[in-house]
């Protein structure tokens, strides 16, 4: 299996000229295609920062990030947006769907950015929402969906661009146990059947239990990296 993500000596420092705070400090991390990885650690350990760096949402203070062999560290903002669109799927803790669009339109939106034809967008959106068990909620807006359902729409949206991997920042933090279990099952199934790579940041033991690799961060450094 080839590496889909490679981070070398990655660091992120806030207030470098006054009182430097190392959110990420010399991290080396390789993620292979098809992995189901959990980034764990206490609050402030740098999980979200690491996800932002490898997702190209933030720029590192040092080191480099390669996605499928492409160095994104010094990529300009516009190219990075396009790179994210074509290569990375995101699932956020607070779902972050577009509130004025229906579930189906939310999923279609990413494909619209990719300039895919209307028919393909509609068919893919229907198929993906069916995969996450929301075939009866296609035309509902986020406000008409439960938290668990919204997060499933977010997963379908993340999959819609056919990304190389999906980054999920505490995806179950706002969900009840049943929704969490349901979401994890969907993601595990996508990982197993479609070989979709997932990287989570999480505190949730149920997510950690499901993960096949657990990377533990403390004070911006990886202190353990366990494969099950």
């Amino acid at each position, binding site marked *: 299996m080839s590496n889909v993500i490679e981070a070398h000596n990655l660091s992120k420092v806030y207030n470098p000229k006054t009182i430097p705070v190392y959110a990420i400090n010399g991290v080396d991390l390789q993620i292979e295609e098809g992995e189901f990885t959990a980034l764990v650690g206490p609050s402030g350990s740098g999980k979200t920062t690491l996800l932002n760096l490898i997702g190209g949402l933030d720029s590192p203070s040092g080191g480099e990030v390669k996605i499928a062999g492409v160095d994104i560290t010094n990529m300009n903002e516009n190219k990075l947006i*396009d790179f994210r669109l074509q290569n990375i799927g995101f699932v956020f803790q607070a779902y972050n769907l577009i509130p004025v669009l229906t579930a189906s339109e939310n999923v279609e939106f990413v494909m619209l950015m990719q300039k895919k034809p209307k028919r393909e967008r509609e068919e893919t959106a229907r198929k993906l929402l069916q995969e996450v068990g929301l075939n009866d909620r296609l035309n509902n807006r986020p406000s008409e969906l439960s938290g668990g359902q919204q997060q499933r729409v977010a997963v379908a949206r993340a999959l819609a661009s056919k990304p190389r991997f999906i980054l999920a920042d505490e995806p179950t933090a706002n969900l009840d146990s049943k929704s969490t279990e349901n979401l994890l099952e969907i993601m595990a199934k996508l990982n197993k059947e479609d070989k979709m790579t997932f990287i989570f940041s999480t505190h949730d033991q149920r997510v950690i239990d499901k993960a096949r690799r657990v990377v533990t961060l403390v004070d911006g450094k990886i202190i353990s990296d366990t494969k099950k």
Partner: protein
Amino acid sequence: MLFKVAWRNIWRNTTRSLVVIASVAAGLLAGMFLIAFFQGFVKQDVNNAVEAQLAHIQIHNPAFGDDKDVNDTITNASAIVEKLRKDVNVKSVSGRAITMGMISSSSTASGVEIHGVNPGDEKNISSISQNVVEGVYFDGKKNEIVIGKKLADKLGVKLHNKIVLTFQSKSGDLTAGSFRIAGIFRSRNSAFDEMTVFTNFDDVAQLLGTGNGIHEIAILLKDGQKVDTLAAGYKSQYPKLLVQTWGEIEPEMGLLTGLMDQMMYIIMGIILLALMFGIINTMLMAVLERQREFGMLMAIGMNKPRVFIMVMLESIMLTCVGIPIGILLTIGIVDYFAKYGINMSAFSKALSQFGVGNYVYPELHSSMFLSVTIMTAITAILSAIYPAYKALQFKPAVAIHQI
């Protein structure tokens, strides 16, 4: 879908969007109503002056000038008058004998401009006959005079009283005649009412000793808009005579028209500037409130031009809703006041100095709708630029975690 998102976004906060729409509509209404008011005001001022005395075009002997020397009559005036009567563009023509003189009552005297007119012709060219408030506009008797109400009050005379006109005759001698007041008029211009008196042409001409000599040919056109073109034609037709349009005779009136046009654009600019800040404020609030959403959109791959277009679209859509509402409101309100007038009687004294009555009838040309609409649309688009630019400044990693 970007249109769909933008359209739905503007209805997420209905109150706020309605405030923007109302601002655009109110800005448009305020600007256009003001323009309509001033256009109506100026038009009435001009019309009153033209209808009362000026007419559209006047022809004089060039030497007549400011001195109004009675010897400076128009050569071959009767033939010119007859020719003008046959002109298809001319509604009516009147030949006048004019001199400066003194009007005296038993108690006081005042300087006046004396107009000897043919009442039949003058009725078709001047509105004075319609403004007679006491008596009649000439009764066909000898030595009748029609004077303004303000002058009558000043002289302390009433209808049918006798007054004396004194002026210089053609020979240079002082001559005087006794006239009976046949009518008292009140036009919308109090200064005119105080300074101008009307007598029969023949009565004045006899005292002046000018016979059929005409000092002024007044021409009322069928279409006042053609005044400049037709005046240019008469100028070339009568090169030895002084042909003037109302704007040339009363340059301050022409200046007022031009000044009002400029003033309207300045006032419109001020209104649109206020509108611009209103839209910037509201749209900025809408953008800052959705910081997390913009962060998410950029995170999942919405590029900056698209983010910019989306915010611009929201402003443009709000404007597109506001503009027709503003136009409809303007049409309704201007139409109402164009019919019933705006009661300005509280300022009647000041307005009468301008030659405008107690009611101002706003008037709006269709060309103004277009230019004001374009100006408002440009304002709205310019107003959206800063909020849209602000949206581009968000960093996805930070914005996503904003509450």
